[in-house]
């Protein structure tokens, strides 16, 4: 179990590095939007399902927190996309 947690921690660190790297690269605002938001979604899911241990928890807690993550990140993506067009 702890091996999995250590692996997930390393994934979280790697995804943070990817997001920062993308923002430093000479890419357009549009080009970094989707990958950065995708890494945010994956990181959020790891924290919710693994660190908070909500995967397998009694409904509806997991779905409420995951739903919050998807709605907030989705609307942020929509707002940034709207600002670019």
């Amino acid at each position, binding site marked *: 179990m702890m091996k999995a947690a250590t692996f997930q921690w390393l994934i979280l660190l790697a995804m943070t590095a990817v997001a*920062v790297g993308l923002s430093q690269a000479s890419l357009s605002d549009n080009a970094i939007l989707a990958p*950065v938001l995708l*890494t945010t979604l994956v*990181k959020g899911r790891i*924290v919710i399902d693994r660190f908070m241990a909500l995967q397998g928890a009694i409904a509806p807690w997991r779905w409420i927190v995951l739903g919050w*993550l998807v709605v907030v990140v989705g609307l*942020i993506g929509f*707002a940034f996309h709207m*600002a670019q067009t």
Partner: protein
Amino acid sequence: MWFFILAELLVFGVFFLAYAFARTRNVELFNASQLELDQLSGAINTVLLISSSYFVVRAVDQIRHDRSRSCAYWLIAAMTCGGTFLALKLVEFGAKIEAGISMSTNTFFMFYLGLGFFHFMHVVLGMVILGAVTLKAWKGGYSATSYGGVETGAAYWHMVDLVWIILFPLIYVLH
């Protein structure tokens, strides 16, 4: 505790969306102001909070194995990361104030300082909670059959981490 956590997430969610939609009307201002932020400090703070969350996971695992003292050590490691996060944040805020930046400078900095300080206060509260849990764990107040307090403190700390996981790319990375 979960109702409290959900209420907190809801409030942060509203602030995040307010920032994102306010930006649609001031894209150039937001992008120019964002360049004044210390992205490295934000990235280091992300590493610190993610690592502290991982240390809290280890603490919960230790108490499940009835290792109270080891649980306390992992919690101390998590709080060290949390304390460093707060120190870096104070340096970051201090630099902005020294540069004459305040919440009234412009809309971007109103959100940056407002959201940052709101999250900062949650980290402080999380540290207080983890401190109380650590003290009890150190004294052997939890066991493999009774560790609800450790799980509750852990859930709150992970919520603080989860919020930062969105706050960091939103304010420091996306442009």
